[in-house]
């Protein structure tokens, strides 16, 4: 009886592995296809960036060259675009971290009237498509003189991401034990100092995630850049990109080599940022998903 049961268990346990090598093979083929599908654009980006006459399909450069990179800096003022993007994304990040820390803390810890309604209202804001609010944002920016200004770009990008990040940060604060902060109060700290010295450092993974996501969002955003900026001096990378891609109604040929070179330089900083902070990001995102 026992032996039979045991052998049955053994058979069940090995069944999926022994079931069929065809299934295993099929699974691997699917994985490979998916990976290839997502890798192809990057392969194109890197091969074309070093190709003197890049085309719209993948091919190895006949004569690898750095000429595309030289041209984007000399002919298209790409350094300025990069500097503008770094400034806008960096400032958005700082502003978001400060605002989100305070708002998230308030929603997580403080007691006030209508808190739960407002908490959900914040989430509702997140469901609003950006393109739906594009026109009023444009109107507001114009009325307030925020078009063609760093301040406008930074404020609007910071605001776009706020609802989601506030929720994310609220969740991180929810996971910081209340007694840590109470201990700091009893040790003689005011509530604000306790937040800065105890709660924020303990929730640093959350701050890292908020910083990373807000930087990335402002770095990659295109729509608002297009409607808010028409000054050459304020041009950011997405706009430089867009200009290079434009065919002026078919009168200009797309210079794929330049587009690819810009793409590489556009992607590298955020990839580097991710590599540096990946441990923090992963820990933070895992923690937040556990809480949600």
């Amino acid at each position: 009886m026992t032996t039979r049961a045991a052998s049955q268990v053994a058979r069940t346990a090995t069944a999926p592995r022994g079931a069929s090598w065809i299934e295993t093979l099929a699974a691997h083929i699917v994985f490979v296809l998916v990976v290839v599908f997502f890798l192809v654009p990057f392969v194109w980006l890197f091969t074309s960036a070093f190709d003197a006459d890049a085309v719209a399909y993948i091919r190895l450069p006949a004569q690898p060259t750095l000429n595309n990179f030289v041209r984007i800096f000399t002919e298209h003022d790409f350094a300025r675009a990069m500097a503008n993007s770094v400034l806008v994304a960096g400032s958005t990040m700082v502003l978001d971290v400060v605002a989100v820390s305070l708002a998230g803390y308030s929603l997580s810890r403080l007691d006030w009237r209508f808190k739960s309604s407002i908490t959900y209202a914040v989430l509702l804001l997140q469901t609003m498509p950006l393109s739906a609010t594009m026109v009023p944002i444009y109107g507001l920016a114009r009325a307030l003189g925020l078009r063609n200004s760093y301040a406008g770009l930074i404020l609007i990008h910071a605001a776009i991401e706020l609802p989601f990040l506030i929720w994310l940060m609220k969740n991180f604060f929810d996971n910081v034990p209340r007694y840590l902060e109470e201990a700091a109060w009893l040790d003689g700290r005011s509530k604000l100092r306790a937040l800065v010295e105890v709660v924020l450092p303990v929730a640093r993974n959350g701050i890292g995630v908020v910083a990373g996501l807000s930087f990335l969002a402002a770095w990659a955003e295109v729509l608002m850049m297009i409607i808010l900026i028409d000054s050459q001096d304020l041009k950011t990378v997405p706009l430089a990109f867009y200009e290079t891609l434009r065919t002026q109604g078919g009168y200009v040929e797309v210079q794929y080599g330049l587009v690819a070179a810009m793409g590489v330089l556009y992607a590298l900083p955020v990839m580097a940022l991710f590599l540096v902070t990946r441990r923090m990001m992963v820990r933070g995102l895992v923690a937040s998903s556990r809480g949600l």
Partner: protein
Amino acid sequence: MARVEYAEVSKRFPTQDREAVDHLSLDIADGEFLVLVGPSGCGKTTALRMLAGLEYPDRGDILIDGRSVIRLEPKDRDVALVFQSYALYPHMSVRDNIQYPLRVRQLSAAERLSKVEQVADLLGIRHLLPRRPAQLSGGEQQRVALARAIVREPRVFLMDEPLSNLDAKLRTHTRTELKALQKQLGVTTIFVTHDQAEAMTMGDRIAVLDAGRLQQLGTPDNVYQRPANLFVAQFIGSPPMNIVDARRDGEALVLTGGWRVDAPRGVAGSDGIKVGLRPEAIDLERAPAFGAQPAEVLVSEPLGSEVIVNVKLGDVLLKVRTGPDVRPDPGTRVFLRARPDGVRVFDASSGAALN
């Protein structure tokens, strides 16, 4: 060092249907070690947190050295709290944890250093100073939390079940140490626990709470020997006091099972009473004797230094504490005799002690 008073303090949480703390009045003397003890949900932690400023009373007042503190922020009350979970700052070293309250008070680096080392030596944790809290055992974390409370020399120490996360052996050891330390420092201490043994061994006085109300306040001996009501009688003491239904018959009390014991002097009640007998207030005899009640042994529980003999008296189970060499087998017939000074009488409906 300070005197602490609770004056008719009440607090109800919005989600609860009764007061968490109900008209609590306590007067704690300067340098006293007071233990708040009771089952979970009895309001002991809430009472402590109100003194710390982490909860606000709905009614009543809390005074430290005669001055009301209920309108003060926690930071301005000059009390230190050792949390059940220790609440060490995980991102700081042990040294930074201990000197955090000193940094807040803007002491110079040299002063901080000397105070931290002094308190680290007192608690034997100097070698832990460079470590992070996560690298410490539970007992070590507990010491660091204690050090952080001691180093700032507060007016009052508050301790919220600080021993409950330690293993049994370490808990007993720390209990002794903590009591000695408190006597050495002489700081008024309020200690919250659900463990009656902790309360008995540590407190100068203990306050027993149940359902938000103070049941009894007194020295451990007083509370143990003369419990104010049935709740205290059964909560304090291990094993707890035997409680048996009884009725009065002239000068005697007749317990369920027919056992007659002499009624203590001055007990008025006649009907609806219960008799309480501590396990050591019952003498167990092997041979029949005049006035001794026969009963049957159910099981004996040897504990090394003593034996708890469980006997059946009718359908009532009684626990009797005897010497280590008395180990009657199950089914043995034994004879019980109540010590006259150990008979406690309670009103069955209100639970209040009648003698």
